[in-house]
């Protein structure tokens, strides 16, 4: 793609390597950020210990709302993790070039969020020691078993898809990281798998990347479809829908896309990679977001207009609650502020510049989080068979500080994984960037060897 060559002049291999590895060495601002994340995680751990000791009674979840903030966060995390598949696999396989500098960022986000998604399920359990029961006594008929299977599979494939394109970068890291602690060099040695840049090795790795990229597409579609089936396979109002699978998948792309835009902004500024993640990439991501959000909007209209037009008796209180009841403010903020307005704004070229993109992406991702909240909680507040003489507290739900702390721990944990990965490995693939700048593999090998001698 000719427009891939942007306003930046041709870079030499030397500048590429030093630009992309510099953030790994440079620790400016790193310690406060890590301390901040660790603080949140420690607070969450403290809250979790309280929850373990006293049981789920410390949450606001009662007989009506038994899936609260944890499960809605779980869907949000799974959704965010799905972007790795879209960017690196789907766009990569069709040969779109502008994703080169952001594919690894997308994979890092996928890894961080997918890993913590599994943990959130455990946070939602009053007796986490019983998690083994699902492997010993789980029923294959239950979507929960499918979900556990597919989440674990996705994490493993995501690790592979992160690791494989990393291998050709390792020789550059080995060379430039000689002044770094030995444990880091041991990791690089381990992950190089004996890669020395031979054409056969490149061919093998490219083939493996291709296999994994193809494999992750159905698995990623499955992960979010199955997550939606946890809801759609019930008869509950608001969940009993045939389009929940694609509705969740497209919603996930919107969420993950916004997460990638935010990460692109942070890395391009904080890691000083403006020459690599340029306005051009923000523009492309903005266009992609418009497409994804329009598809998602289409599903949203389906999901609410069709039942709203019919107004079946059981759906009526639920829909009224969303449209003009207790959840109306959140609902319309999410739909308009998190979906309709971003679509309109991103249609303008000026709005696809980095800073406006960041603001819009933050709005989209906050909207996406509360969208999951709106999918989960109002339905549970409208059971088909209300309990008689139910205590007042059962019919409302507002998450307790314990729940918020544990959820924030999950967010901080995912960010911590992304941070650690970004401090260990270049966030932009060196070899692919160099290759696109017209540098051959022989030149790369020579570069590595020369410095090593």
């Amino acid at each position, binding site marked *: 793609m000719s427009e891939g060559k942007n306003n930046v002049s041709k870079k030499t291999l030397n500048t590429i390597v030093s630009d992309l590895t510099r953030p790994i060495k440079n620790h400016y601002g790193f310690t406060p950020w890590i301390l901040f994340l660790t603080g949140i995680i420690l607070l969450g751990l403290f809250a979790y210990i309280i929850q373990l000791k006293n049981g789920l009674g410390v949450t606001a979840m009662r007989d009506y709302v038994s899936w609260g903030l944890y499960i809605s966060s779980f869907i949000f995390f799974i959704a965010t993790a799905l972007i790795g598949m879209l960017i690196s696999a789907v766009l990569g396989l069709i040969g779109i070039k502008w994703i080169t500098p952001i594919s690894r960022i997308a994979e890092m986000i996928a890894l961080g969020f997918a890993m913590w998604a599994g943990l959130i399920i455990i946070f939602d359990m009053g007796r986490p020691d019983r998690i083994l029961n699902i492997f010993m006594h789980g029923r294959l*008929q239950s979507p929960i078993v499918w979900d556990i299977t597919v989440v674990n599979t996705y994490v493993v494939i995501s690790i*592979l898809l992160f690791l494989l394109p990393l*291998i050709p970068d390792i020789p550059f890291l080995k060379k430039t990281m000689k002044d770094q602690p030995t444990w880091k060099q041991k990791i690089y040695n381990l992950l190089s*798998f004996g*890669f020395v840049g031979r054409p056969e*090795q490149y061919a093998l790795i490219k083939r*493996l990347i291709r296999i994994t990229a193809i494999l992750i597409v159905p698995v990623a579609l499955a992960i979010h479809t199955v997550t939606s089936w946890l809801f759609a396979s019930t008869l509950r109002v608001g969940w009993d829908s045939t389009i929940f699978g694609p509705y969740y998948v497209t919603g996930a792309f919107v969420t993950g896309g916004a997460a990638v835009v935010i990460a692109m902004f942070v890395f391009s500024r904080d890691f000083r990679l403006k020459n690599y993640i340029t306005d051009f990439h923000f523009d492309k991501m903005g266009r992609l977001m418009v497409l994804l959000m329009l598809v998602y909007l289409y599903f949203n209209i389906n999901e609410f207009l069709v039942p709203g037009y019919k107004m079946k008796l059981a759906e009526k209180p639920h829909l009224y609650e969303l449209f003009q009841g207790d959840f109306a403010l959140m609902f319309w903020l999410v739909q308009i502020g998190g979906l309709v307005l971003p679509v309109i704004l991103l249609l303008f070229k000026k709005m696809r510049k980095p800073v406006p993109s960041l603001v819009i992406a933050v709005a989209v991702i906050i909207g996406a989080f509360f969208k999951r909240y709106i999918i989960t909680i109002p339905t549970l507040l409208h059971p088909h068979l209300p309990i008689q003489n139910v205590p007042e507290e059962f019919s409302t739900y507002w998450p307790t500080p314990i729940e918020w702390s544990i959820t924030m721990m999950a967010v901080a944990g995912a960010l911590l994984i992304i941070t650690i990965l970004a401090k260990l490995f270049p966030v932009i693939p060196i070899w692919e960037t160099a290759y696109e700048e017209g540098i051959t593999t022989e030149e790369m090998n020579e570069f590595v060897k020369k410095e090593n001698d």
Partner: protein
Amino acid sequence: MINHKNITMKYININRKVTALLFILMTFSTSLNAQWNIPKEAKNSIPPVEATYKTVEEGKVLFQKNCISCHGIPGKGENNKAINATDLGDESYQLKHTVGEVFYQFNTGMGAMPSFKNRFSEEEKWHIAFYVKSFDNSFKISGERIKTLNANLKMSINDSDKTIKVTATVTDDNGSINAAANTKINFYVKRIFGNMPVSEDIKTNEDGIAVFKFPDDIPGDEKGKIKIIAGFEDTDRYGKNTETAEVTWGKVLHYENPNLKRTLWGSNKRVPVWLLITYLSVTLGVWFVIFYVAFQITRIKNAGK
């Protein structure tokens, strides 16, 4: 008197609470200040039917179905005080109301007390009034009080033509045994929730013998087993003695326990085959590729030589 208690007590207790809630508004708005305004002619109205032990008994059955949820069994203080329902067995009530007034009251209704005008026939309404007034000792009931005889049934089973012969006898006070002639015998089949009548108009002959040909289409259990119960229709006269016999005349039940099938809602052992195949092939297929890729990574080193 009669054992209506065990069947209905539970029902009464629940029903009382519900009725109390439902009627509380009505009570406060209307019946608290309302007064019965019974016309004088009601006081002396003459029942078109006679008050006998039989009609009182029929009134009792209707009363139990329709009245005790609020009024309770007369004389036991089970009336619902929350809605000002009267205990109809109370002396103060009985002294103040003639049978005609009782009739008028539930025919018309007042406040929380609904009108039963169109619910029952004229006769039935009088029967209920008789029953209510039967708690007044000065109320005259004609006819003879029914005396239960010491009756017995003997069943003999004939498997070849599926008939049951019943011999009904009555032992009198002197100990001599006589045939219970010309009385109706009912046959039932025991089902889960009570007894199902299977006979019509079977009467004993002069010798107290009745023969019943068992129908062919009654479902039995997995072995065709059926429990047959025989009893007198006129329980007031002959008592509630029944005789039971087990036969294998029922249609054999072909019952497939759905819990033993492979279903979506079954246990893990009974997962549907299509689901098992789908799950295993997809999961194993994906993990095969994962292991293949992981194995190939270890071959990168060799490829470099």
